[in-house]
């Protein structure tokens, strides 16, 4: 693993539901590290807190009476910064048994502080591409103009003509079909795949140190998906940009990731090198990871035309988070020896082999 670029420590992002008078614990104590030039992939089902983690890093959460706590350290050549620096001054927490019970917050001051920190970082050093490129682009502005605008805003290239040349360069770089023609198109005139290429061009145009890709291929057709993944793989090896790839598609992840973090119910349940976590031959796995991998049709299922090994039940409610292990209710590997621990206490993230962490009582002492 290379030098760390972004370190997330114990990130907690809670929203407040007024009608239910409770906290929605979208992200509940996440710790992970993205190394320079490497791809960390966050895998998990909807509601597991993947996107909220990304939005917390970008300071894009309009959290209302909610809370973001923990530490996000971003190290560049210019030094290191905590992206959540001083935010705690604007929030007063009432804690009980280590759980946050109430919050009062100076919303305006908090917002201002976020902008102060992120103005220099967002779009410039950390860029993001979104799941739905069509809605992420401005429908009233041509694709070319949007990229040019981003270049003039985030890079030293300020002259309109030079900026246009740069954006054409990036459109070519992402293999846009006839870039000069597409430059003057509005987003509605482009297909989903083309819009995603334009988004990638815009994100990369400021030559960021970190790219956050939130489900970049979801909603695209299989053939287009495959070309976009190919493009991301190519750009990664050519430009050496560190990437935080969020996806629920194991196939996409296995093609791009160096490290994988598996999230479930707002926490990381397994974290380590991609081949160990996604590969079939390593036995030390979190039961959730194993079940997730097994629930996709495999050559063997198809051969036998048998049923799929499904994970029964539904994901836990982020408001009423279980006291013990979050996966306990759906887990099929609970043994009598550990049942009590599983139901009552949340296991810690334990390092089993170097770099490979699992949060499960099966691997307890």
């Amino acid at each position, binding site marked *: 693993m290379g030098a760390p670029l972004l370190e997330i420590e114990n990130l907690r992002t809670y929203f407040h539901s007024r009608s239910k008078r409770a906290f929605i614990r979208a992200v509940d104590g996440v710790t992970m590290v993205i190394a320079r030039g490497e791809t960390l992939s966050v895998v998990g*089902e*909807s509601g597991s807190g993947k996107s909220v983690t990304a939005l917390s890093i970008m300071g894009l959460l309009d959290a209302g009476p909610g809370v973001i706590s923990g530490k996000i350290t971003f190290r560049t050549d210019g030094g290191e910064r905590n992206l959540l620096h001083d935010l705690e001054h604007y929030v007063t927490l009432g804690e009980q048994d280590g759980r946050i019970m109430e919050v009062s917050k100076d919303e305006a001051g908090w917002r201002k502080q976020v902008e102060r920190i992120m103005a220099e970082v967002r779009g410039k050093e950390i860029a993001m591409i979104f799941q739905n490129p069509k809605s992420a682009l401005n429908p009233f502005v041509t694709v070319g103009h949007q990229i040019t605008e981003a270049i003039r805003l985030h890079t030293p290239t300020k002259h309109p003509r030079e900026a246009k040349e740069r954006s054409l360069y990036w459109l070519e770089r992402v*293999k846009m*079909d*006839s870039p000069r023609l597409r430059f003057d198109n509005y987003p509605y005139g482009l*297909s989903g*795949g*083309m819009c995603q290429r334009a988004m990638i061009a815009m994100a990369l145009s400021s030559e960021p140190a970190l790219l956050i890709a939130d489900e970049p291929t979801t909603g695209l*057709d*299989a*053939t*287009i*998906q*495959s*070309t976009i*993944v*190919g493009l991301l*793989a190519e750009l990664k090896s050519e430009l050496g940009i560190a990437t935080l790839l969020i996806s*629920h598609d*194991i*196939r*996409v992840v*296995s*093609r*791009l990731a160096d490290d994988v973090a598996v999230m479930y119910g707002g926490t990381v349940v397994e974290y380590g090198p*991609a081949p160990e976590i996604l590969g079939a031959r390593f036995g030390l796995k979190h039961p959730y990871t194993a*079940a*997730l991998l097994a*629930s*996709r*049709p495999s050559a063997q*299922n*198809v051969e036998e*035309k048998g*049923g*799929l*090994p*499904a*994970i*029964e039940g*539904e*994901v836990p409610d982020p408001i009423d988070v279980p006291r013990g292990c979050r996966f306990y209710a*759906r887990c099929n590997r609970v043994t009598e020896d550990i049942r009590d621990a599983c139901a009552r206490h949340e296991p810690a993230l334990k390092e089993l082999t170097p770099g490979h962490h699992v949060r499960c009582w099966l691997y307890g002492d």
Partner: protein
Amino acid sequence: MILEVTNLRKHYRQRAGIFPALRSRERFIPAVDGVSFCLEEHETVGLVGESGCGKTTIGRAILRLTPATSGRIVFDGHDITAMSARELRPLRSQMQMIFQDLDAALNPKMRVRAILAEAITTHHRLSDGEVARRIGELLEQVNLKASKLSNFPRELAGGEKRRVGIARALAVGAHFIVADEPTSALDVSIQAQVVNLLRDLQRQLGLSYLFISHDLEVVQLISRRVAVMYLGKIVEMGLADRIARAARHPYTHLLWSALVEGQSKEASHAPLNTRTGAWEPFDFERPVSGCRFAPRCPVYEARGRPAVCTDAATEPQLHDIGGRHYVAGHFPV
């Protein structure tokens, strides 16, 4: 034979302007352009293809949810193509659709109980007690907790909503079901639950499915036969395993290779054997003559763009290559 579709066409009309005077520029979009296939009893036929290729339109046209432009649909021995609504009514209870977007398909103002009761009483006059008994039976079939009956659709998780959609299709006593992307937008773990449920129901109730999906692995798992669509036409059809392993049409190859490539990291460095740019989906506004797939076809390119591929008079038609395997292409691979 429960369903026989012959030369089905559905052309949508697109108006070019908002003023009536400009409607002379009307265009027809051939969403489904001459499709023939059949479905046997207790069989599952998978329909795969990229978005916009006309999969859903076929499903809707078969159930007469949208009128076909031309062609013939025979359901259970009845030609339903031109049946009046009154004649069609008794048949409607035998064929149902599971819609893709359940947020749109389930009435947000109705509780689950009312949704199911409405479906049950639409075709059969039953007493309240009988309706309640039937609801109980449906819940058991789709494995849904009785406590969910008093919930509104928005209060249900994705998998539960899907179960309600399936229960509603079963409520009228349907034995032929068009399942439109039943596993899309669901989490992986829930997808497997739904696939298993559909298989179990098929076995218990003797259902036949037209299974529309772009998820090739799931289709291969659940279907006996698979039809691959490209731009309103079936380009290849055959037994699921043969389509997956011994496909002959270059498009089928492309679809499946997109899948296989995803499985190994090393493969991502292998150059894709297609022309970049030509990869974007087809544009109905710029129709090609001859083979529709030619602009994206690696074979067309490799053979030095033969004229036969773009000759309007020789658009390839499905032909039998043995073993219930049909291909439409000039140069099967």
